[in-house]
């Protein structure tokens, strides 16, 4: 006896992602899904960006990692509510993992939830977590050829932070040409050029994000 099913497996994830989005929206929580390749600077960005954002926003972190708590430990001094999600080797967070993490957060007292995804430029692009914004950190030192190689990630991000720009010249990378290639793939995304280790380069990003979150949660 054959039963026709014809179900797209990824729609299971999307459905849970939409449920997560509804929960965040109902609670007035703005959510960013922070993605990048390993070592691109996600945690460094948070180390240097969150202290400024914390002045005006209540923030929580969902910290994705294959096995360790190392990133969460680097952020522990900020004393923010943090939920550790270990994927046991998995290459991405999925919506079900975020759904479980949401249950451990006091959403009534959070304005911004930062989800630091597992470092990977392929799989996280396919898994909607229910975030408001997908923010990608693109380390310029990995090469100017990455945008077209990892098209889905670049194309699906709302914000792209081009990081380590101070090293572009040393790595013989044409920053302007790279910027144009990113823009070609994703004409509408917001792009910032930053050096995550230098807080003075994060002022525009911090200001934009704080303004965007406040505007969204006041609506």
């Amino acid at each position: 006896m054959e039963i026709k099913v014809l179900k797209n497996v990824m729609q299971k994830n999307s459905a849970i992602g939409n449920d997560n989005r509804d929960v965040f929206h109902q609670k007035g929580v703005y959510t960013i899904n922070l993605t990048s390749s390993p070592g691109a600077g996600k945690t460094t960005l948070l180390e240097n960006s969150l202290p400024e954002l914390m002045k005006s926003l209540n923030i929580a972190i969902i910290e994705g990692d294959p096995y360790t708590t190392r990133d969460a430990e680097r952020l522990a001094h900020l004393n923010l509510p943090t939920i550790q999600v270990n994927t046991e080797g998995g290459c991405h967070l999925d919506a079900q993992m975020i759904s479980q993490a949401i249950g451990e957060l006091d959403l009534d007292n959070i304005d911004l939830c930062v989800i630091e995804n597992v470092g990977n430029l392929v799989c996280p692009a396919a898994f909607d977590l229910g975030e408001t914004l997908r923010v990608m950190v693109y380390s310029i030192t990995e090469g100017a050829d990455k945008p077209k190689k990892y098209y889905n990630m670049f194309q699906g991000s709302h914000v792209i932070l081009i990081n380590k720009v101070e090293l572009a010249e040393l790595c013989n990378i044409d920053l302007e040409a790279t910027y144009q290639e990113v823009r070609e793939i994703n004409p509408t995304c917001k792009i910032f050029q930053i050096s995550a280790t230098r807080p003075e380069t994060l002022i525009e990003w911090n200001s934009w994000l704080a303004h965007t979150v406040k505007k969204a949660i006041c609506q």
Partner: protein
Amino acid sequence: MHEASIAKYVLEIVQETIDSDPCCQNKLVKSITFALSRPYTVYPDSFEFYFTELIRDIPQICGTQLIYIDSDQRGFFVSSIDFED
């Protein structure tokens, strides 16, 4: 490695299908057919590794055969489930 998540979602789809049809509830699952498009975003070998682990202790499903057919439609679909008559 994303096949671990995919395997979990496939098992949910199979169980939902069983739960939704009283005729299926006491019948062994003989085979599950998947439709997938090239280039593959889900690798059958990897998927089978995780799925086999998930169904190991589920008597109704653990003996199932996994069948893959090429599709023009982009994605990874559970196409059909064949139950013992």
